[in-house]
């Protein structure tokens, strides 16, 4: 690099004090960042990437300590800098675009005041025309009607709009570096892509360096000039995207690359003709709203049929009606129109009691493995609960069945005694799958089964689901927003948008040659998909 580096980190080590012991979060991290450069720091949870971001902002929590090393920002070592020094740097030299836009704005202050606060701090004093500057800034980050937005409160804006406001706040101090901490992971894919494009364009125009913290290797390769891959607090590899994609040096990087489900629709023999296990015919759902609003249509005209051993994926972003579809199929909601059939029998109007015998044939794996298990139940209690509730097994037989189930999902039987809080996310999801399998169902509904998990764990869970399907011939309905996951699992794909089915058909056809503009946008938004350098794509 010809320029002197803007940020230089040398041999940095940070540790936390947890329950009286020091836990190392960062070890020997060394890298530098040139002005205007975009660097991505990639790692899974526990890799120390967020600690690194906080260290660069001087925002490490109270129980953290910089053990050794230096952090040079514009030629000043700030590793042990005072709060006063940091305050001059924050906002004006280093800006932050935080992780979750939904909770990163003060809910009780107007947007305009929050942006103005950053502007006033950067200038050092209040000044006339700050309102005009606020509106100009809001317009620059791509918000319509900036004068209106400035008067609104955060809860009146969508997630994408809030993220734009946060970008405006980061830009307000005209910093030389912006740290974007998982800037879009809480947003829908199509919104993600637009926001990242906009952010990169703004920083490029202004010559601001960008440090992207992410778990998504594909996205990092798309966006960054260089990547720093981290694992458990240690840097694993520092390379350009091209180097990473064409020949990552480190096995861990390669593992991460392979773990990310490649966007390759799977091709399998078509479903055997015959009676479908589950059939939804022209299903719609309306919810009543308070008086003046009338009704809200969550779902309309959904028809699908599922055959044994097949996977049908329902794709959609938040608010698309995919959860409603799932709840209708499970008999938790009654459809307003249309009907649901299991093995040719219409069950649409069934009460819970009437539906109960069906529970042995259709089970659900929930979205969030952290909330899906009763915190007071051991793994054993959770797994056997359906068997106990139906009174199918008891005594030693029950215990043997539990052992069998836990082995089936690839966990050691000693785990039966653990409580959910003693398990990792992936392990919890395995337990949830074991519980769903306890009644030996024919149909398993998977509600975003891997969206809360790290990429490498995702791959393991997807592999497990694939194994189970092959061995037990169980049919899946997969609900997901992640097209890569869908592509790796689905035989049939159904795309939902605002409660309407926009496209439906075999996976290879829908994902390979999307006909509807919305599907095309979804496919284009897959990180890594747009890059020609990607050897693993399509």
């Amino acid at each position: 690099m010809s320029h002197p580096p803007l940020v230089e980190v040398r041999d940095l080590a940070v540790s936390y004090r947890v329950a009286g012991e020091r836990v190392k979060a960062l070890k020997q991290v060394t890298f530098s960042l040139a002005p205007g450069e975009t660097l991505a720091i990639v790692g899974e949870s526990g890799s120390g990437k967020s600690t690194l971001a906080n260290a660069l902002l001087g925002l490490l929590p109270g129980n953290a300590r910089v053990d050794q090393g230096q952090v040079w920002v514009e030629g000043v070592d700030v590793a042990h800098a005072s709060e006063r020094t940091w305050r001059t740097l924050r906002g004006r030299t280093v800006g932050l675009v935080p992780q979750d836009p939904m909770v990163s704005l003060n809910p009780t202050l107007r947007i305009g005041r929050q942006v103005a606060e950053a502007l006033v701090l950067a200038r050092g004093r209040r000044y006339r025309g700050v309102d005009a500057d606020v509106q100009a800034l809001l317009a620059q980050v791509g918000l319509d009607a900036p004068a209106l937005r400035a008067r609104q409160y955060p809860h009146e804006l969508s997630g994408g709009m809030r993220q734009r406001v946060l970008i405006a706040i980061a830009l307000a101090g005209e910093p030389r570096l912006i740290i974007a901490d998982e800037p879009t992971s809480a947003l829908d894919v199509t919104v993600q892509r637009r926001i990242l494009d906009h952010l990169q364009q703004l920083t490029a125009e202004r010559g601001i360096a960008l440090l992207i913290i992410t778990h998504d290797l594909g996205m990092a390769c798309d966006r960054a000039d260089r990547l720093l891959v981290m694992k458990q607090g240690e840097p694993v590899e520092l390379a350009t995207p091209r180097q990473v994609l064409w020949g990552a040096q480190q096995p861990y990087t390669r593992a991460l690359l392979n773990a990310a489900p490649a966007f390759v629709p799977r091709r399998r023999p078509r479903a055997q003709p015959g009676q479908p296990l589950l059939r939804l015919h022209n299903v719609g759902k309306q919810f009543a709203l308070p008086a003046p609003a009338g009704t809200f249509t969550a779902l309309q005209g959904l028809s699908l049929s599922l055959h044994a051993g097949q996977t049908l994926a329902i794709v959609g972003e938040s608010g698309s009606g995919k959860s409603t579809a799932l709840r209708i199929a499970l008999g938790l909601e009654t459809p307003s129109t249309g009907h649901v059939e299991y093995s040719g029998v219409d069950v649409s109007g069934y009460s819970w009691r009437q539906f109960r015998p069906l529970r042995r044939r259709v089970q659900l794996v929930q979205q969030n493995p952290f909330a899906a298990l009763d915190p007071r139940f051991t793994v054993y209690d959770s797994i056997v609960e359906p068997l106990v509730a139906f009174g199918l097994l008891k005594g030693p037989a029950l215990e043997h069945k539990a052992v069998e189930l836990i082995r089936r999902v690839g966990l050691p039987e000693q785990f039966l005694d653990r409580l959910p809080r003693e398990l990792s996310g992936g392990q919890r999801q395995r337990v949830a799958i074991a519980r769903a399998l306890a009644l030996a169902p024919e149909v398993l509904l998977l509600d975003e089964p891997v969206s809360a998990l790290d990429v490498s764990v995702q791959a393991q869970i997807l592999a497990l689901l694939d194994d189970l399907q092959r061995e037990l011939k169980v049919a899946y309905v997969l609900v997901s927003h992640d097209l890569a996951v869908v592509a790796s699992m689905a035989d049939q794909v159904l795309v939902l948008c605002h409660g309407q089915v926009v496209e439906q058909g075999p996976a290879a056809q829908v994902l390979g040659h999307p006909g509807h503009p919305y599907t095309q946008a979804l496919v284009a938004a897959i990180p890594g998909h747009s890059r020609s350098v990607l050897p693993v794509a399509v």
Partner: protein
Amino acid sequence: MTVDIPLPPIEAVPATQGRTRHAGRAATPWQRRTRLQRAVQALAPLLRKPGFSLALLVVLFALLAALVPQVLTGFDPYATSPADKLVAPNAVHWFGTDELGRDLYTRVVYGARLSILAALLAVAIALVGGLGLGVLAGFAGGRTDALLMRLVDVLLALPGLLLALAIVTAIGFGTVPVAVAVGVGILPGFARTTRGEVLRIKTLPYVEAARLGGASWVRTLWRHVLPNAWGPVAVLATLDFGAAILATAGLSFLGFGAAPPAAEWGTLIANGRHFLITAPWVSLLPGLFLVAVVFSLNHLARSAEEHAR
């Protein structure tokens, strides 16, 4: 009611049983851990905190005094000794003596029986009534919920002590009426907390999972909702046990409690206020003991709550 859908081939279940038996032959080294073992594991870190242990000791002392006061003191609580009246605290009379020469420490220890039992009765009334109302409202929802919550609103609108005063006016003075009155006064808080917890837990994914696993509402309530709702309610019960001690003491301080010579803590404090200038310990030391017990209860509740988080 009947479902004419063919169930999965029945051999599915026996088949798994068959497999289970097979697995049974390979003797499993895994054994279930008992609930006791898990409880001990959960409590151990708390007991290692000195503040928690100390608070626990104070509360246990008060409970012991309520059950077997004679173990903790050699004096007779009612034996007067005019020669020793209003003696300041010393090695023999730890808390000094009152205007009739009765040992004050002994009277505090014996007073624990009435005060603690009244508080226990009050909390029991509040707990049973509050849990019942809260679970019913949270589970039934709809009109039942609205109706019960309006009732709780009404109870909340009546200041606790005044409601207690009204009850005491109607059913007379004494320890039991006071306890009943205090119990009714803290009942709405329990009902609200329980309802809130039930409503929160009812929507959690694991409850839905249990329902989808075929568990009935009753089973879900017993196995999932109540055990998980119990934490905050138990904390509130501990806090309110302290509050009930204070409230019963307040009522007996006002003169609505047990008749003399029996003494609750509130009566002792009220009795001492006539000698505030000459012998301040007569009302201040029993009060200090009361503060220690209630503070310890609050500390236990708070530690348990922080530990759960």
